[in-house]
């Protein structure tokens, strides 16, 4: 299994007025061909920024300050804007959070699809239109031929997110960065959209970086999970393992906060305190002020990623456990 996307030691900084804030601090992970990697974390943990960096769409004052992004064996973070542009849609596509604002309100659905395809594929307008109709049918939009003439405001939020999915898939990309694709939707529609995304990816072998703060979405859709906290990766591993036996105290806290039909509501736990902001970084492990099991060294030394079964964890507890076992 070779990695389709390999992010190595990614560091993103934000130039503030008097100093530089660190948004992403030494984050590394791989996504295999056809794999769905869930990226979870609280708001501000750096999930979206990581996705934006992979797309090469970081905007001032944010910039990549270190690390490498390798896609299909080729380093892409050093490409110039035009070379990067030709990768988008064709190799790496995006789905954003809010379908109500993702589409140009003054252009028909059909034109937006045709425009995207004609930018990247060698297609005549008629062929592109036929393909657009077929895609709309595939994402479950009724009367696709008529819908090509529709404007975004004539559709509901769920329908628009289906259109956004059609746009993401229209050039058959190998990787989709889905940034909170269901967060802005009604709960009943969320499951449909998630299901559609997963089905289309499985059929085509498309890999996904699924950014979300919703552990339910992760449990439902992803093969592996990466947990982010305060701009760092704290744990990454197979979804099943993380849900059953998370190693990092933060991940365990996250898992305990998933509502479960079989547990009583009173047992729903929450992690006390809040995540440190980038303008007030915490030395050592960023989670130690909130960690119920923090050791003395957690406050001073930053833990490295250590293997733990099929997962990797950045936690001194894991280090201590493996030492005592040895």
């Amino acid at each position, binding site marked *: 299994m070779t990695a389709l996307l390999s992010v190595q030691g990614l560091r993103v900084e934000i130039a503030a007025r008097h100093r530089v804030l660190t948004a992403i601090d030494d984050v590394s992970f791989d996504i295999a061909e056809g794999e769905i990697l869930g990226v979870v974390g609280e708001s501000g943990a750096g999930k979206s920024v990581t996705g934006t960096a992979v797309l090469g769409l970081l905007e001032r004052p944010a910039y990549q300050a270190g690390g490498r992004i390798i896609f299909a064996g080729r380093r892409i973070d050093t490409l110039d804007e035009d070379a990067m542009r030709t990768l988008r849609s064709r190799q790496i596509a995006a789905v*954003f959070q809010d379908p109500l604002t*993702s589409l140009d*309100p003054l252009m028909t659905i059909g034109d937006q699809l045709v*425009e995207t395809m004609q*930018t990247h594929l060698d297609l005549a307008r008629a062929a592109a239109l036929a393909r657009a109709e077929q895609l709309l049918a595939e994402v479950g939009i009724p009367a696709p031929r008529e819908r090509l003439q529709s404007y975004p*405001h004539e559709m509901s939020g769920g329908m628009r997110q289906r259109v956004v999915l059609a746009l993401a898939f229209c050039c058959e990309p190998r990787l989709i960065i889905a940034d909170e694709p269901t967060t802005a939707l009604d709960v009943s529609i969320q499951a449909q959209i998630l299901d559609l995304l997963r089905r289309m990816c499985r059929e085509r072998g498309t890999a996904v970086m699924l950014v979300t703060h919703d552990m339910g979405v992760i449990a439902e859709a992803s093969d592996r999970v990466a947990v982010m906290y305060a701009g760092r990766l704290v744990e990454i591993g197979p979804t099943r393992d993380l849900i059953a036996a998370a190693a990092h105290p933060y991940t365990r806290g996250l898992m305990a906060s998933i509502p479960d039909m079989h547990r009583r509501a009173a047992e729903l736990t929450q992690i006390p305190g809040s995540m440190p902001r980038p303008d007030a970084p915490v030395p050592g492990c960023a989670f130690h002020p909130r960690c119920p099991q923090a050791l003395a060294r957690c406050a001073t030394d930053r833990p490295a990623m250590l293997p733990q079964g099929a997962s990797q964890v950045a936690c001194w507890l894991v280090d201590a456990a493996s030492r005592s076992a040895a």
Partner: protein
Amino acid sequence: MSFVLARLGQTVLVLLVAAFVSFSLFRYVGDPVNNMVGQSASLADREAMRTALGLDDAFVVQFTRFVGNALAGDFGISYRFGQPVATLIGERFPATLELALISMLIATGLGVPLGVWTALHRDHWLSQMLLAASLIGVALPTFLIGIALILFFSVWLGWLPSFGRGEVVRLGWWSTGLLSASGLRALVLPSVTLGVFQLALIMRLARAEMLEVMRTDFIRFARARGLRPRAIQYRHALRNTLVPVVTMIGLQFGNVFAFSIIVETVFQWPGLGLLVIQAIQFADVPLLAAYLVLIALCFAVINLAVDLAYVAIDPRVRAGGGVRRAT
């Protein structure tokens, strides 16, 4: 289509209200009969005069007659010039309309592209300079610009005439300065003077709107779709910028037309502004009333055109709702 009809209906209503206000002017400037008959006239004579002029009739009847006559192009006789008001305005109207049109053409033709360019090249030194210049353009009083231009181009350089319309060509009742060299030369200074403020305003608005649109999600998504920068900037961003800019241009065109008085005075431009200044000084009510109706008509026509432009630009208006911004 029903949209257009509804707007036409509104336009008629607005014009009726304007006519009502104009007509009411007559009633608050004193009794015209006093001015028309001598001091020695008997009460009976006055009554006879009043009946002959129709001033005995109920207000509604008089107003209906005023509107009926106005529809036939008859606004009565000017007190001061002793000529039909319609003729007087007909002579002056082309001069003002041409001046307003040319200055708005200059302002729009330069303002929109400059606004877009400065928004797309925010850090370019030229962009900063244009922005500073536009601030001066907004701040300088029009008459000062006019006088400065006259001093420079007419007095010192002697390139362009400083007053009048030059040679005009008659096309039916319309007299145009656009078809003769001297007419065109005479247009330059006044239309630039009138256009400078509008140019600065349109440029600043186009820039601000463009910057706002470039920050929206759909532009970010368009970038994520890998569209070419030109397609993003012009096909997506510029079109979304146009709705508020078109509104502004429409409103400003009305203002330029109605309030070109200062520029017409500075350049002795034989347009409506100059005529109206004289009419105000002499309390020439019929002329003023007709002018008010005409200005209302112009505003109504411009607004109708702006509304139709919305329909062409924004599909959300076609659905019947108002213009909602997608932000």
